[in-house]
């Protein structure tokens, strides 16, 4: 199959997975935890790579996901010991990221892991990095990894939709209802770090953050219902992936960068023109209410 197809499919799977999780991060006001996790998985990736010697292992996925969870745990721990939340996020993720960069730079000879690639990803190469099982070419590995990540997310969200919803909007009520809020918190964080690991090769650590936060924020401006918000978020992500791919093709530039740029532009459009919460409609409403006030 053509390379365009695989690249766009990878990008769409990634943005769908990120879009779904992003909605919950935005609603729980934890957007920057997503940022922290996506940086913090770097040492996990580096260590797992060093130990196993390949990029292909399930071990790496699990190891790096565990490190993302460790980061969340440490941030929580610092917060509980009285350090303000933004600072505890900043301390933990920069420290873990620094460890990751040091491990990679010290083992530059034995590690076939390019720092640039870790940060921006190289989605253009997905089609050559294929997964072979029993000697049969099964297609690009990233598609499999992201596909299974998306499947797990969909499964968990479908099973526990109500629980996730209540803990997103009203954690206190969720506790009162007997929902194990902490369990769902860590489940969500686990999914975020799993997605970060699965997509670091294709879009890189920093741009995962963009796809987690930007489409979900766009959707947040468009609707007040969680179901629709999830749908719009995925849709915005997929549209940005497709437009972004062709923009990158025209400009001869990074695909991941251009996907996030397009997502940002879509957010800007929603910010101004959203029929519910846009700047324009707010202005109009203000003027109208002023008009009626004067008329009275």
């Amino acid at each position, binding site marked *: 199959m053509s390379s365009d197809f695989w690249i766009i499919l990878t990008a769409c799977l990634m943005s769908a997975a990120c879009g779904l999780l992003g909605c919950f991060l*935005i609603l729980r*006001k*934890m*957007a*920057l935890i*997503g*940022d922290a996790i996506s*940086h913090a998985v770097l040492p996990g990736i580096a260590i797992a790579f060093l130990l196993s010697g390949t990029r292909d292992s399930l071990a790496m996925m699990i190891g790096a996901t565990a490190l993302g969870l460790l980061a969340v745990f440490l941030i929580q721990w610092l917060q509980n*010991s009285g*350090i*303000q939340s*933004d*600072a505890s*996020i*900043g*301390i933990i993720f*920069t*420290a873990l*990221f*620094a*460890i990751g*960069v*040091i491990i990679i*730079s*010290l083992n*530059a000879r034995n590690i076939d892991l390019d*720092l*640039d690639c870790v*940060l*921006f990803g190289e989605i253009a190469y997905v089609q050559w990095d294929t997964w072979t099982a029993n000697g049969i070419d099964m297609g690009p590995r990233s598609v499999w990894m992201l596909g299974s990540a998306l499947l797990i997310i969909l499964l968990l969200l479908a099973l526990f939709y109500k629980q996730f919803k209540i803990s997103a909007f009203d954690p206190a009520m969720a506790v009162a209802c007997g929902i194990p809020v902490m369990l769902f918190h860590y489940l969500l964080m686990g999914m975020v770090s799993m997605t970060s690991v699965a997509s670091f090769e294709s879009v890189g650590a*920093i*741009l995962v*953050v*963009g796809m*987690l*936060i*930007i489409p979900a*924020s766009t959707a*947040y*401006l468009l609707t007040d219902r969680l179901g629709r918000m999830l749908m719009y978020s995925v849709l915005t992500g997929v549209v940005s992936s497709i437009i972004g791919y062709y923009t*990158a093709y025209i*400009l*001869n*530039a*990074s695909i*991941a*960068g*251009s*996907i*996030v*740029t397009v*997502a*940002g532009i879509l*957010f800007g459009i929603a*910010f101004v023109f959203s029929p519910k*919460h846009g*700047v324009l409609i*707010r202005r109009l409403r203000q003027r109208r209410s002023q008009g009626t006030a004067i008329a009275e």
Partner: protein
Amino acid sequence: MWNTIGALILDPNVRWIIVGCMLLGLSSGVIGSFMVLRKQSLIGDALAHAALPGICIAFMLSGVKSTGGFFIGALVAGVLATFGIRWITQYSRIKQDAAMGIILSFFFGVGVLLLTHIQHSGDGGQSGLDKYLFGQAASMMQSDVYVLAGISLLMIVICVALFRLFKLISFDPGFAKGMGLPVAFLEQLLLLLTVIIVVAGIQAVGVVLMSALLITPAIAARFWTDRLHIMVMVSGIFGALSGLIGTLWSGMVSQLPTGPVTVLAATVFFAISALCAPRRGWLAKLWSRKQTKEQWQRQGGISHE
């Protein structure tokens, strides 16, 4: 080991880099204290990422790699980013953390787009532009250190001159407004200072790790004192020492990048402070809890155990 350190310090090139990193640590520690107290510490992270498109556009316009051009480009981009964050939070229902995430990743995405566009267009002069991402203190030259020294001095002078005002807006902006102070202007000035120090630091420690120099020394200093002027000083000292340790250590081991080691040194200072600081540290808290319990038991109180 001491011989190697001695040789490193005697090397004039290394000495410049050490001075540069220490000044950077000092001034970011000072500014960082105010940002941390204003609960805006992560804004440094957003600003550092936002600088990338500014650097790329400056390069596309001028066609040469000049520190001055990059500085102006990054400065403009950083100021735009602060406005962007403010607009999004003011004119929509999106919260500040999400707004920061949006601006950070959008600017960075545009930056990556432009950077790869420049790289693929095959202009020979662009090589090394991506060094700004991870920082390369070793590439700092004497002139860079002069710039850095000038900026740090300016920062410290401004912070000393406006110390009382910055103190007021950090603790009680409402009261400051009531006194008729130009709070919005002062807040913007503090942000501008942050942008300047972040942009100056990117070359040494890189985009991702710059925010650590603003946050970690300041939080470490917070453990030792309740007084702002002492906190600012201690934070500056922690920052400068981290810069020193980072440069020396990375000079001794080959292939060890300066930025991450500096950040780790700052993290170690934080860990030591969190553990051993008097009154606020973990050990001190444990001790005082034990004391209180014993006192309670001596008074004939009922123990739970």
